[in-house]
């Protein structure tokens, strides 16, 4: 009886798993040097880290290709970015068209907001999947004035509202392989320019951040965003070099178990990449997989009892709350030593955490925090940005 209620949650997952590939066959591209037009950016985005998308520049249009995530990373979806008033090129028939520069956005996740903020177009957001998780003051101000509407998440998307809003682009969180099913299909057929922005599937921090270039391509801001991203990249690399040179590698545990299951980031996940770059010692860094490892309490306990740091601990805010969750946690070394740090410093009054918003586009800030925490001799610890020490 009560198990049925889990279906709602598991259904999108099932869809993602079931649909292995759908979409058009790949098309040959003959990239031509971009031309200057008033509606077109002269700069081109070159993708170095992100594995989930590609942008090809043509004479007077751009083509965005999203790559499938299963197996061979072939193209699954193509979108034609066409300047306003432009005619669709004959050699790419039937592609969904997004008119650029995009003037209004409906976004689904907080990281989309972070990406838009980075590109400087957060003020073009007219719709949000949920209003609950917003940190950007600019967007919150627009919510207050009624300039932003709530359209609902996942399967709860209000199709009618979305169609009536005529957004310039609708950024979904869906896996590109599942972009053409269910409500997404309905929306696409109704002419909503839908684009899956699945930065969460990237396995490196810079790869995640690089999705800003996709937003940039939508609004013709490649030049500014390229420069901004370059500085993020340089900063990140500089910090990673500092982390790599650290003499010690303090051991770290992540998260908190619930009912005996402890989800620890797997070795190929972006969190572990961050830990490695910060010069941390992570017990499971050689494991396979880009998601998380589900382990029992007993497996983690020997590591947790002797760990140096305990990070990203979830929704708790004090050591007292941690002890309230499970008295056994008080025996972990980080609890005894007071080396528990949570990524919740920038949680606002409505409980929304900026780590998940601006953190996506600013991995260098996260990395700096991690180095400051674990190697205070390399960078001073006093000015953490996303992290705070739990007391």
């Amino acid at each position, binding site marked *: 009886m009560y198990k049925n209620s889990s279906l709602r949650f598991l259904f999108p997952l099932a869809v993602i798993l079931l649909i292995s590939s759908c979409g058009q066959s790949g098309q040959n591209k003959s990239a031509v040097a971009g031309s200057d037009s008033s509606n077109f950016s002269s700069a081109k985005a070159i993708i170095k880290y992100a594995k989930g998308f590609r942008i090809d520049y043509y004479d007077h249009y751009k083509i965005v290709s999203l790559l499938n995530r299963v197996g061979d990373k072939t193209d699954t979806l193509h979108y034609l970015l066409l300047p306003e008033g432009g005619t669709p090129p004959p050699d790419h028939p039937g592609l969904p068209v997004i008119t650029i520069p995009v003037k209004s956005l409906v976004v689904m996740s907080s990281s989309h907001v972070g990406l838009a903020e980075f590109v400087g177009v957060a003020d073009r957001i007219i719709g949000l999947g949920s209003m609950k998780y917003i940190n950007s003051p600019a967007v919150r101000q627009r919510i207050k004035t009624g300039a932003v509407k709530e359209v609902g998440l996942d399967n709860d998307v209000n199709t009618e509202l979305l169609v009536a809003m005529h957004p310039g682009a609708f950024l979904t969180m869906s896996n590109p392989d599942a972009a053409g099913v269910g409500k997404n299909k309905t929306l696409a057929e109704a002419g909503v320019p839908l684009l899956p922005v699945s930065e969460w599937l990237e396995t490196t921090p810079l790869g995640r951040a690089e999705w800003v270039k996709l937003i940039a391509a939508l609004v013709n801001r490649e030049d500014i965003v390229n420069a901004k991203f370059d500085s993020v990249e340089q900063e990140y690399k500089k910090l990673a070099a500092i982390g790599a040179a650290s003499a010690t590698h303090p051991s770290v545990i992540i998260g908190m178990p619930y009912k*005996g299951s402890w989800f620890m980031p797997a070795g190929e996940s972006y969190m572990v990449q961050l830990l490695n770059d910060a010069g941390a010692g992570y017990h499971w860094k050689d494991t396979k997989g880009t998601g998380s490892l589900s382990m029992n309490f007993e497996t983690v306990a020997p590591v947790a009892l002797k760990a140096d740091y305990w990070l990203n601990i979830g929704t708790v805010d004090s050591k007292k709350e941690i002890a309230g969750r499970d008295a056994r946690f008080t025996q972990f070394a980080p609890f005894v030593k007071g080396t528990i740090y949570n990524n919740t410093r920038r949680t606002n009054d409505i409980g929304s955490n900026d780590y998940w918003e601006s953190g996506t586009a600013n991995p260098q800030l996260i990395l700096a925090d991690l180095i400051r925490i674990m190697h205070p001799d390399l960078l001073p610890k006093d000015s953490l940005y996303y992290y705070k020490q739990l007391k």
Partner: protein
Amino acid sequence: MPVISPTVRLAGLLLLLLLAFLLDISVGSVKIPLGDVFHILFSSSSKDDTWKFIVEKIRFPKACTAVLAGCGLSVSGLQMQTLFRNPLADPSVLGITAGASLGVAMVMLAGGSIATLFAIRELGLSGSVLITVAACLGAGLIMVMVLLLSGRLRDNVLMLIIGIMIGSITTSIISIWQYFSAPEEIKDYLLWLFGSLGGVTNGQLLILGSVTILGLIMAWLSSKMLDALLLGENYARSMGLNPQRARLIIICSSSLLAGSITAFCGPIGFVGIAVPHITRQLFRTSSHRILVPACCLIGTLLLLLCDVLSQLPGNQTALPINIITALTGAPVVIALLLRQKNINAY
């Protein structure tokens, strides 16, 4: 087949249970030599503090929880099956499990709302304690409703149907709540739904233990009533039994058992429905004087062995206990029932 007296069978089961208990404590993801396990258990000292932590704080409480949950759920199932004279009855049919789930959903899914956070901080309660209290209250609420209704209804089948209806209503309320909740809150709730023996520690174990033992004592004392009810209410009345009061005591005991265990471990399915069948097949009796303790032993044995299976050495993940109980237990029940071909006990 030579006739073995039920007492001998019970003693044999008890021995098996002790072995299973020790086995459950000795195996796990972390390899600890058997000698050290015993050393830690009996002298509470070890050369390795990590081993001591694992045995004392993880494995021992978990095995104890398995014992309590095994006893409680199977006896509760036995009572329900006899009371409703229905082989499909188990603690969830009266909506008691759903009531506990509602309590948990209230805490978890409203976790982001100001009211709950305020309550947590003000009362100094956090996490597990609050969830447990809420689950007990939820189970208790449904139980009181069922008891009030049972006072008006004299028919057990009607009672059964009403129980299922109440369960459905409760589940719908939870679904509505889920529908409007954030994904990460739903994730916690779903994990709770999978059931777990590993989340019950010291103080909670004491509470769970006392409530379960209270429920078991009530069940034991009501075994004569259960015997009489099995023969029909008229017969029970002719024996000088007040069926109304018997029903009250049995529902009370069953709710205490199912409610508290669901609160602490999540809704562990299958044990409640399967163990009474296994027990009746093995003991070939309908006397609850024997069935109640036998259910305790077999239920415990089943849960302990399932826990061992879910913790096999080299296996780092914790498979939810619900998956294992059904996977291993269901074939046993099917095999036993195929031998019998019909159920005569009702």
